[in-house]
């Protein structure tokens, strides 16, 4: 299948099965499975130079905190990022498939996959995953953000579990904590005096830290910031230079001076 540069098809031909589903689960139409690891708040915000993508670090299974250092903002290639909400087992696998798919396409076809092509690849995986998502064993609702080099601008998208993609004009959110911050984002964008898209990086980062702290306040599955454990969210910036991670030390300073004092 190299002639079409389709890595996912190549994997399937070699007997790879993407979907994580078992007939035992969800047979009678309701969740009959043990608690799954999930829970999150992730968001992507367009700012002056591109896009900032952020996520808390907590993974939960039912009432239990599974892990407090998860990285949910996954770098797929130099210009795009997938922030995951939902079942990590499936989401990490999706990220791996996408990462290899984009590389494989570039190396076999000798050109980069377009931003639309990348989005489509993610939608295809989500569609493929639909049975598992409906059975309750593998729902993933990602936020996909990147810098479109052809158009020279940042872009953000959010998805539903079946693979429909929606473009966020200014921002996109996902995960159990997202209802809390969606309204705040809308409010800030419209009435704070300056739309998000015009903010410099530092101001946008402060807003993101405040939003994640708010999400953690109302959603037990969102980790927020834990100063004692030196745990800060993951924040990545995507500009025409590519994807870069904002160092935790910088977040620490911003949090101490601009977030904690108001809490």
């Amino acid at each position: 299948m190299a002639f079409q540069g389709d890595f996912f098809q190549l994997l399937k031909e070699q007997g790879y099965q993407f979907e994580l589903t078992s007939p035992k689960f969800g047979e009678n139409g309701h969740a009959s499975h043990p608690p799954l690891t999930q829970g999150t708040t992730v968001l992507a915000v367009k700012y002056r130079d591109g896009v900032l993508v952020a996520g808390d670090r907590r993974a939960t299974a039912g009432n239990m905190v599974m892990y407090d250092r998860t990285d949910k903002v996954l770098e797929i290639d130099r210009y795009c990022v997938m922030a995951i909400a939902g079942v990590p087992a499936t989401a990490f696998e999706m990220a791996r498939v996408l990462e290899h798919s984009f590389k494989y396409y570039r190396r076999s076809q000798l050109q980069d996959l377009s931003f639309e092509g990348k989005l489509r690849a993610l939608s295809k995986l989500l569609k493929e995953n639909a049975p598992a998502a409906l059975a309750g064993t593998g729902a993933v609702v990602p936020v996909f953000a990147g810098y479109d080099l052809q158009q020279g601008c940042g872009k953000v998208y959010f998805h539903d579990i079946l693979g429909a993609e929606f473009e966020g004009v200014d921002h996109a959110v996902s995960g159990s904590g997202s209802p809390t911050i969606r309204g705040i984002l809308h409010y800030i964008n419209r009435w704070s005096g300056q739309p998000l898209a015009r903010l410099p990086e530092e101001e946008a980062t402060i807003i993101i830290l405040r939003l994640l702290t708010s999400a953690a306040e109302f959603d037990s599955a969102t980790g927020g910031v834990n100063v004692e454990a030196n745990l800060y969210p993951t924040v990545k910036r995507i500009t025409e230079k590519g994807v870069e991670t904002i160092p935790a030390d910088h977040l620490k300073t911003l949090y101490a001076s601009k977030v904690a004092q108001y809490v």
Partner: protein
Amino acid sequence: MYDEPYRWVEAVGNRRQYLDDQFRQGSPLVAVSYVDGIVLLTTSHGTPKLYEIYDRIALGGMGHPADLEKLRFAILDMAHTEGFQRSPGDVTGARLIKYGLAPAIKQAFEEIYKAPYITKLLLAELGNLPNQDRFFTIDYDGTFEEHDDMAVLGAASHIEDTMRAYLKTHVTPSAATLQAVLEVAVRTWALGALSQSHDNEQSESSSSDSKETESNKKDSFSEEQILEHLQTGLKEKTLECVVLDRQAPGSSKYRTINQQEILSLLPLLNKTTN
């Protein structure tokens, strides 16, 4: 008629002769490691001859473009499924060559009812340090060799020997910069191309008096001759150059050096274009 053993040997012999002829006009290929990476260099007429295979692996080839593409796709499939199913660290040049390409090429070469691959390949694998860089070359019959520091492809083995000897005397991979290594690489390419055209002239003239003399193969040329051949060679062909850059951010280390960058790194070429 090939079912008798000696006929088969004869057929394979003919095939060797046929294949040797196919590479006479080909462009030699040079790969050398330097402090910050590996350089691969050749010339082409539009169709590229240097390719990215995996995060730290690059491929170059001589021969028929369609065969090259077929083998390139085979090795891409192997590398990417391995990198996905296991991990990128498990994708190694040695495995791709020894268990992947070499058996396929050998089989095609020896199945005398089918067409062989008209290709010679060179695989460069970037290590974390210059002394961990590896090079693999594989001939049209599936014979492969592993090299440290540098490797070359040329129309015949004696040409490759000449090129390698020239490279060895002019480069110290553990200390060389990109610019220094590029200059020697481009001269080595010209030396290879010069030796090939010398060979071709010899065989044309000797075919008339039907006595081929080994002594006609000339292995040493002066720097002026090399430079002159470089200038004439680059009038018809474009220099193609890629690096595996040890310092590149991210997992993919492959980078194409564009024409502008080549000219700024190689002042000796500016003289040729003026």
